[in-house]
């Protein structure tokens, strides 16, 4: 097996870039919505057969075992080529959590099936009354013999109808204080009593779902970590998620479109527009510089602190402003659906705008991220 970490950075970059360029389906480059499983399963298969589907996993479980520096290169190349994100939560979330907190039997059962794409995972965290205040979740699991019996409702579960399995936070002790009485379960979505209902979003896509649990019996060996200690399991990967989510590459598509359309319309002749555009471009570039600082920290093997939240705030809010300007310069055509052609440039004005909207909500809203920085970084007093 290749030791990728022993390769020079540039050799490694060249090798994966070449593979992505040769093998990634061209029609899926820079798509503006989450890809569905039937569209991306061939790409998953190719990565799996190459041994590249799990860059973050250790080699004993079929991963590439990339160190932080190589991992950054891998992600940069995916983004550079405009590769879409498959339903990868099994690789990014569930796998690492099972490796860290799971039993040997759980590892042996779930990890190979997750790697091959036989098991596709979705996340069962949020509830109608537990959004930003996730720890107030009420979906309950009561032990009856060898089973947990689960009742309740989860919501905003992305691509649940593509998934075969769900990782779920449930309340297992109603007496304990908020974070204490929560457990982490693995659930097959074919289990009787589970109903999935897609929710149409503003863009007209059915990316997220509601999932209802009605007396769903889940074997006790589906518990990951200790009973009532699920919050610890769920929190284990948060910092890295915020780094990935704050990547400055996300807004690149909108920035390129904005520049092409503005050129086609001769808008750079207008000094007012030119200043707004340049300010936004610099906001992206300077954000990339800030991102680079955190990446260096990861490469040095240092843990990320709460400060990393600022990346998500800055990148996502800048991205939104970019998409707003794109709609604005489109004028009447900016509010028409589908792909419009202006001066030979084909642009979908509204999709980037819609796509950027939830970016300041998911993964911890901008407001929650600001609360975190105020408390843990700026040391401001609690209310």
């Amino acid at each position, binding site marked *: 097996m290749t030791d990728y970490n022993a390769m020079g950075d540039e050799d490694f970059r060249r090798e994966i870039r070449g593979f992505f360029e040769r093998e990634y389906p061209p029609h899926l480059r820079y798509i503006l919505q989450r890809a569905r499983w039937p569209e991306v399963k061939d790409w998953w298969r190719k990565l799996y057969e190459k041994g590249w589907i799990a860059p973050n996993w250790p080699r004993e479980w079929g991963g590439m075992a990339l160190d932080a520096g190589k991992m950054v290169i891998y992600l940069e190349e995916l983004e550079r080529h405009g590769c879409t994100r498959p339903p990868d939560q099994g690789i990014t979330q569930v796998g690492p959590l099972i490796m860290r907190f799971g039993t040997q039997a759980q590892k042996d059962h779930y990890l190979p099936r997750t790697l091959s794409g036989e098991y596709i995972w979705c996340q069962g965290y949020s509830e109608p009354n537990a959004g930003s205040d996730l720890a107030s979740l009420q979906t309950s699991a009561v032990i009856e013999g060898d089973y947990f019996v689960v009742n309740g409702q989860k919501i905003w579960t992305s691509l649940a109808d593509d998934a075969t399995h769900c990782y779920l936070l449930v309340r297992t002790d109603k007496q304990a204080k908020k974070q204490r009485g929560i457990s982490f379960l693995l659930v097959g979505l074919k289990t009787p009593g589970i109903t999935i209902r897609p929710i149409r979003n503003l863009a007209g896509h059915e990316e997220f779902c509601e999932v209802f649990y009605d007396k769903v019996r889940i074997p006790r060996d589906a518990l990951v970590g200790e009973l009532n200690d699920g919050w610890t399991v769920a929190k284990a990967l948060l910092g890295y998620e915020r780094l990935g989510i704050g990547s400055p590459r996300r807004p690149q598509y909108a920035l390129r479109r904005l520049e092409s359309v503005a050129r086609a319309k001769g808008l750079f002749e207008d000094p007012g527009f030119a200043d707004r555009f340049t300010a936004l471009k610099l906001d992206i570039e*300077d*954000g990339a*510089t800030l991102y680079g600082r955190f990446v260096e920290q990861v490469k040095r093997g240092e843990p990320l602190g709460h400060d990393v939240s600022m990346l998500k*705030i800055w990148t996502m809010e800048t991205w939104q402003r970019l998409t707003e300007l794109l709609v604005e310069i489109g004028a009447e055509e900016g509010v028409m659906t589908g792909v419009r052609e202006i001066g030979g440039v084909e642009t979908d004005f509204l999709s980037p705008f819609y796509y950027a909207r939830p970016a300041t909500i998911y993964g911890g809203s901008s407001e929650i991220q*600001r609360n975190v920085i105020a408390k843990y970084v700026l040391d401001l007093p609690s*209310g």
Partner: protein
Amino acid sequence: MLADSVSGFIGRGPDLARVRKLRDDPREHDPAIWKQMADLGWLGILVPERYGGLGLGLAEMAIVARGLARALAPEPLTACAVLAASVLVEGENGELKTVELPKLVAGDTLVALAWQENAGVFDPAAIHCRAAPFEGGYKLSGTKRFVSGSAQADAFLVSAGIENELALLWVPRATAGATVALEPLADGRSFGTLTLNDALVPKSRVVTAGAPASAALALALDHGAAIAGAELLGVMDRALEMSLEYLRTRVQFGKPIGSFQALQHRAVDLHIHRELASAVLDETLGALDRRPDPGRRAALASRLKARCADAALKITREAIQLHGAIGFTDEYDAGLYLKRALTLAAWLGGASWHRRRYARLTLG
């Protein structure tokens, strides 16, 4: 090491009583402090060792400039040790370098760069000042404005046209026909207006002429703008720190006001702006110290100055708001930081001018 000596120099709390005493004083800064800065080697950071300097780069100069600006030191470090020193170093007059650079580094001769003539015009070639050949030398006439460091400058480096070429000439303050008038700035320092009326300059005092003069001036101005960015960061550092201290301790409605989410979120935004500026400072100075070509250098300097000017103005304006009425009083220090931010932001090109230049250089 430099960082330690800067923080040792400033002490635990910045000495703002000294800053207040020097406000609107025509001397502008304290010569004894200037001499101490020279003794620490700071005036020679960008000067090669053979002329008595340390031969270091902008990254090192930025450490000193950021630290001093945090204490609002009025000493003209950027004006003399970046702008004027860079022109001399880049110039081709070997004798002038050998004689004058060691004196500049030692703090014995304070030199200021007199290049600009009109407000908001930053094209070094857009000048009316002329040097006419006269008895083997030149007769210099024209008006230079917005000259930072004028208050105690011993000599000026003046840009002027010699026929169709740009030249930079060394003009001692005491030269007959040269007069300096000081105009007060928001932060208590001053810009000088240097009026030249047939001031005589010997040929030996031409620092550089022609294309090399334009190149030297362009480099000095980019490097000056970059270090002004570092100064703006020093201003942000302290203004934000003061605001956060206030939010933690000021009690209203029975609680520290920093527990209110509206204020917490504003504080976080200021923190993000400071961190962005700081990351951009480190990256651009590193790139500038690798001596890129002039186009890239100008783009880097503009990117840095635009970010720092906007961030410093935002942070210092918000510092006033977060402090409430006390922030608007002259006796409270927050206002001193706002006023320094105002003058540094406008000096050597404001944010929108730098964004325009950046756009011109990068959009093609």
